[in-house]
């Protein structure tokens, strides 16, 4: 008898060009190396999407992979990775989102869905317990995400079916387009323009449901680990504010360090008081909600009760507030409306906010006049213009058509020196907080494999560790110093990148497993318990070191992919603004820029720790050999990227 395991055991591939539907068994040796989620996605992308394939080509793939533990009852295991060649960075691209869709795909019997080709007319895919259909979606084309979801559920006569869909932005190949789960108020696979790739395939939506079982290998071990997890979060001081405010709580963190990055990443201080988490909680919160299986409950439903935008409902996340601040907006109602608008149109709030901030600075500097903006007064903080431009981006109207390409490409089109206002890494708009003054965070943005990303690594560890812990784990007491530390930071960065990759592979939420108030709990949740859950569910016998090595392996696959696309050390860089212009805070201090010397020292230490070539930033044969990536070595040698 086959071993009981939480894997469904099959890969479903659908070619929309010739309507070919193909099911294959999951190869156990593939599973043992890449486990699931982001691991499957990265390797399948590497094997199939070569440098000659452009993001909007038929041959590009969309790979939808629920994490290895999705579908089981493991707390906060609900995340699905969508991997593709990104239209923003033209490198490895993926978006992650929580929702019931990934679990539904597994209940239908598949661990992975690969979509390739291009349909002639708009279609949607129905996966119904082993029955797969490609159906006409002409009636859904052009509809908002929530309407699409509603119509699909009505058409299939099942209010509980899980869907992912794109909005009008994805249909028009806006490079900032996202893929939405269950309409507009659940998870969003936002980054890297995954929605645009789906739109380029004329694929409007994918609906999935299933009745198959997900087996559990060892119930005793599972229950023990579950209990241990609950006990850990019960004493972790990180959890109560998360449950109280949701992700809005990061405002306090932002204020503490003065890293708002307001008005297109120029100001560290900002009139943030109207956006206080307490305001959101008392004036707009309807109720707490949560992603599947999550005991932390950090999602929030917000609703505007009165005024111009009365009745707007949104599940607001922190990045939406942060990007509104980048555009100089500090009105909570506008933020909630913006979140809902982006979700309805299928846009990535981070990319859209960052791109609008770029346009606003161009307008301020006179590179864009009123005739370019169709009469919009694009001053920082102008609510009307902010929302109108968001709609224009999704519709690709006027200036929106240029901005829909993302800030990097838009700056190339506008020219006139606007490149220095485009704040992006590898083409992806900047996310989260301002790195100025905190050198390792600056490096972490640069080394991320999918363009600027604060969730590709977890350098926030430096806030938690004591000097003693830093010495033990990262080789130097300096690693615990946020502002001045240099030594040991490279190792800290490598450690944290491999560490959070485990979460993406298993489908675990980063807030539930990879954030904590203490280093001890962090390691316990993110590594120890994640490994225990994985072993209990799948029946493998992975040690914590092997789990960590898997994280490293996946990261190297992505790096090798970017290397094959032509990226090297010169692409591991952050925008010049962070080196040159001091962050304007209430009081200017020495930490107001990213020190280039420190940046390079940390980057070199990081490359050394990774086992990559220090001069080129390219993985070496030894490290790839050690990580059992022989097929990748052969491929890179064949292409002359590896000696």
């Amino acid at each position, binding site marked *: 008898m086959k071993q009981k395991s939480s894997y469904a055991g099959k890969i479903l591939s659908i070619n929309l060009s010739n309507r070919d539907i193909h099911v294959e068994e999951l190869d156990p040796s593939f599973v043992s190396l890449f486990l699931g989620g982001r691991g499957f996605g990265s390797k399948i992308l590497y094997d199939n999407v070569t440098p000659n394939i452009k993001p909007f080509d038929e041959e590009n793939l969309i790979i939808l992979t629920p994490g290895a533990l999705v579908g089981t*009852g493991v*707390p906060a295991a609900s995340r699905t990775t969508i991997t593709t060649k990104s239209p923003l960075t033209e490198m490895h691209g993926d978006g992650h989102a929580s929702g019931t869709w990934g679990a539904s795909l597994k209940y239908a019997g598949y661990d992975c869905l690969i979509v390739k080709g291009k349909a002639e007319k708009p279609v949607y895919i129905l996966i119904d317990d082993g029955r797969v259909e490609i159906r006409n979606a002409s009636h859904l084309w052009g509809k908002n995400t929530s309407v699409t979801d509603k119509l699909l559920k009505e058409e299939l006569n099942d209010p509980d079916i899980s869907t992912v869909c794109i909005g009008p932005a994805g249909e028009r190949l806006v490079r900032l387009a996202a893929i939405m789960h269950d309409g507009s108020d659940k998870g969003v696979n936002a980054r890297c323009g995954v929605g645009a790739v789906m739109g380029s395939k004329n694929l409007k939506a994918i609906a999935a449901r299933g*009745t198959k*079982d997900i087996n559990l290998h060892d119930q005793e071990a599972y229950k023990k680990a579950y209990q241990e997890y609950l006990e850990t979060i019960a004493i972790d001081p990180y959890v109560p504010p998360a449950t109280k405010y949701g992700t809005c709580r990061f405002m306090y963190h932002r204020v503490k360090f003065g890293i708002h990055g307001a008005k297109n990443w120029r100001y560290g201080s900002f009139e943030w008081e109207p956006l206080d988490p307490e305001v959101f909680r008392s*004036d707009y919160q309807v109720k707490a*909600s949560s992603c599947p*299986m999550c005991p932390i*409950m950090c999602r929030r439903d917000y609703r505007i*009760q009165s005024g111009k935008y009365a009745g707007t409902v949104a599940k607001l996340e922190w990045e939406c507030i942060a990007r509104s601040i980048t555009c100089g907006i500090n009105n909570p109602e506008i933020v909630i409306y913006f979140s809902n608008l982006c979700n309805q149109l299928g846009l990535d709030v981070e990319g859209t906010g960052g791109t609008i901030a770029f346009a606003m600075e161009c307008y301020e500097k006179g590179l864009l006049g009123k005739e370019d903006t169709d009469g919009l007064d694009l001053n920082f903080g102008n609510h009307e213009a902010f929302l109108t431009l968001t709609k224009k981006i999704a519709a690709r109207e006027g200036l929106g058509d240029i901005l829909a390409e993302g800030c990097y490409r838009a700056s190339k089109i506008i020219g006139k020196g606007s490149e220095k206002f485009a704040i992006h890494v590898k083409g992806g708009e900047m996310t989260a907080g301002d790195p100025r003054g905190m050198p390792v965070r600056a490096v972490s943005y640069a080394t991320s494999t999918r363009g600027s990303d604060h969730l590709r690594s977890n350098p926030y560890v430096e806030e938690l560790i004591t000097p003693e812990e830093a010495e033990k784990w990262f080789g130097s007491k300096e690693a615990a110093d946020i502002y001045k530390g240099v030594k040991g930071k490279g190792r800290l960065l490598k450690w944290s990148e491999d560490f959070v990759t485990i979460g993406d592979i298993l489908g675990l939420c980063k807030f539930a497993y990879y954030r904590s108030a203490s280093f001890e709990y962090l390691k316990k949740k993110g590594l120890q318990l994640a490994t225990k859950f994985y072993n209990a569910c799948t029946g493998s016998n992975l040690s914590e070191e092997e789990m960590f090595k898997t994280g490293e392996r996946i990261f190297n696959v992505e790096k090798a992919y970017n290397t094959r696309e032509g990226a090297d050390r010169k692409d591991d860089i952050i925008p010049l603004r962070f080196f040159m212009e001091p962050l304007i805070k209430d009081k200017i201090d020495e930490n107001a820029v990213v020190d280039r010397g420190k940046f390079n020292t940390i980057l070199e230490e990081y490359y050394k720790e990774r086992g990559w070539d220090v001069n080129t930033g390219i993985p070496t044969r030894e490290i790839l050999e050690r990580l059992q990536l022989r097929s990748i070595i052969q491929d890179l040698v064949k292409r002359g990227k590896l000696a």
Partner: protein
Amino acid sequence: MSTKINLAIKKRVVYRSRPHEATGLCTGCRSCELACSLANANVFNPQRARIKIVALGAGIDIPVTCQQCEDPWCQKACYVNAIVKDKKLDIFIVDENKCIGCGNCVGACPYGIILLDPITNKAIKCNLCNGKPACVAICPSHVLEFITDNDISKVNRRRFAAILYNEDNALRPVPSGAERIRLLPDRERRRP
């Protein structure tokens, strides 16, 4: 010879919301569904769960499970008498050996919470996990309770009193520095 005292003893799983607390409403995490299928079928499969989260849209999620009726319609609808009384817990449960999977009970249940198991094709309904419901144990926001009918009335009474207090309190000025009991922003929802 003894009179029936079922009402006070019989316990069932109820949704007990606490609208005045931040996490006092069902968050829709569906942990209970998988805990139920794990307890009763040893697998993860929400289709085999005997408790269901109904998503009404706009972020409203309500858990629905068997009401453990005194005189249940599912039992009346069963041709083969497969729905039998469990003496210990004083509820009706499905005798899997007798059940023929006709699905008659499914149509009869006014709450839509007796179901056909997609794998075994037999009827499944909440059996209170032998007195220790797994769904209640796992609920992270503690909105599911295993409670007697009499206690349900106490709970409802308390909630009603809290609403009365709030309605009353909303009209009064708030003394400075005092913690105000928070009103739900969406006031219509509390009124049927």
